[in-house]
């Protein structure tokens, strides 16, 4: 968290983008993209999350490297939980 005071116009811009992405993700779900529906939905969700983290939570403007390390580590640990568990589920009924 820095002392950088951002313009309210900037926040409003991010807000509009987030709302647009919400509408887009809902609308795209009605279009048949096969297996890409899930991927598109998750990508859009991740973009929205990044906008909130970087701009609303000020992570883009913080000088603290430790904050970024904490965020990346937490996400990595979550992926570890999901990934290593799926190593079991994805290979359970192979033979």
């Amino acid at each position, binding site marked *: 968290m820095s002392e950088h005071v951002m313009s309210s116009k900037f*926040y409003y811009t991010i807000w509009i983008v987030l709302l647009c992405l919400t509408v887009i*993700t*809902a609308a795209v779900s*009605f279009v048949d993209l096969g297996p890409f529906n899930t991927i598109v939905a998750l990508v859009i969700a991740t973009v929205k999350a990044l906008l909130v983290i970087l701009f609303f939570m000020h992570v883009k403007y913080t000088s603290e490297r430790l904050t970024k390390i904490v965020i990346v580590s937490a996400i990595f640990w979550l992926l570890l939980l999901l990934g290593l568990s799926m190593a079991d589920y994805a290979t359970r009924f192979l033979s």
Partner: protein
Amino acid sequence: MSDSPIAVEQHGPEHLHHFADAEQQRDAASLGMWLFLATEIMFFGGMFLAYLVYRYWYYNEFAAGSRSLDISLGTINTAVLICSSLTVALGVRAAQMGNRKLLVILLLLTIVFGFAFLGIKGVEWYQKFEEHHIPGRSFNAGDLIKEYPQIHIDPQHEQIYFSLYFAMTGLHALHMIIGVGIFVFLTYHAWKGRYTPKYHTPIEIGGLYWHFVDIVWIYLFPLLYLIDRKPLR
């Protein structure tokens, strides 16, 4: 009474006694809240694993369950939370600029959006109750089976989707309620003039928490509501 130099200084809330200076205190609070949010990621993460496993196993039932949710209410709720994140971010900015009145208004608006979200969520849950989609003895997936004859739906597996739906949205709602409580506390102190450009750390870290709860919903929305809305053949 010891006359060590340490014991004699007086400090305001921005510089508690055990810290070397206000900056150390601010940095500590910020790191503390980010670490707490990391624990929250792992906390929700357990349910995301359950979701991942069962969606992998029971895709049809997840798709049917997802379709039975009201997409308009879900989208509106997502928008409500995004608006609340905006008011939170603007609120932090108001605190940075020392604008007490604006800060209080924005905090109150955030609380209003929070209640709106919870209200809509309550309506959705009630809908599920009426449709007999609450897991347990009264559960009945007959409506879904009838609606989607082209895919095979096991009513027992369908209960797993709804169990996760209620667990995930329920826990999220609980975090919203706690968030609203925190913001009531912040609003009261803001109104009393406790926050200044020099000291508004509680607003910042309360804001971080609120944004986190928003981000969880940003993921819950597509995962629960948008699994498969393709037109049926």
